[in-house]
């Protein structure tokens, strides 16, 4: 079984089509792709507007942790063939793709949906990337809540 892995931490626009192509093998019959988008209007809780987000990364560690997520996915879902994880950094306006996690497999009932879900959840837990949100009232850092264990 081919198991292509593609990781990117990039200033450039992310192309979902390109990522799908990179993880499509002769045995691929299903790709599940999650993409995060800069939300312009948040209605959860108090409604607020976001004009853009500024992303920064601790790049060498972020790349290591993205690799680790691929290992974790393959340990849990052996039917997953290809994995692509891309995170865009820099200033991203509302409506822009920020991240893509895509997993390929022979069939859709192979755990590939759960694998992609796991990928984005782990990215938000352990990959050292931060975003600062700018709206009509100014800018503030968005802080996560997860504290990884040592070595996690």
């Amino acid at each position, binding site marked *: 079984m081919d198991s292509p892995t593609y990781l990117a931490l990039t200033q450039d626009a992310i192309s979902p089509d390109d990522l799908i192509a990179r993880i499509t093998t002769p045995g691929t019959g299903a790709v599940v792709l999650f993409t995060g988008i800069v939300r312009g209007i948040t209605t959860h809780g108090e409604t607020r507007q976001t004009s853009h987000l500024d992303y920064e990364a601790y790049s*060498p560690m972020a790349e290591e942790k993205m690799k680790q997520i691929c290992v974790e996915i393959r340990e849990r879902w052996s039917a997953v063939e290809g994995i692509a994880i891309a995170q865009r950094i820099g200033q991203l306006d509302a409506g822009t793709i920020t991240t893509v996690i895509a997993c390929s497999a022979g069939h859709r009932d192979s755990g590939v949906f759960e694998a992609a879900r796991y990928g984005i959840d782990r990215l938000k837990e352990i990959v*050292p990337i931060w975003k600062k949100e700018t709206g009509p009232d100014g800018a503030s850092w968005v802080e996560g809540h997860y504290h*990884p264990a040592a070595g996690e």
Partner: protein
Amino acid sequence: MNRGRILLFATLRDYTGSRSLEMEIPAGTTVAVLTEMLIKAHPRLEKVRTSMMTAINREYARDEQVIPENAEIAFFPPVSGG
């Protein structure tokens, strides 16, 4: 004595005004002790004391972990990528 470079990100960079700092790190210094040294040097970090995290050589570190010589040390808040 080991002169170490500490990388800072996001809120911690704002609070210290620096992307990286140089500090004298005596042999045997643990992550917990280095954290105290950093807060003492930059008191604004007091407000993120309980949330800030440490990575040694690009891996999440324990408080009681001793900092090895020539380590790559980073302090940062909980991550918020995606």
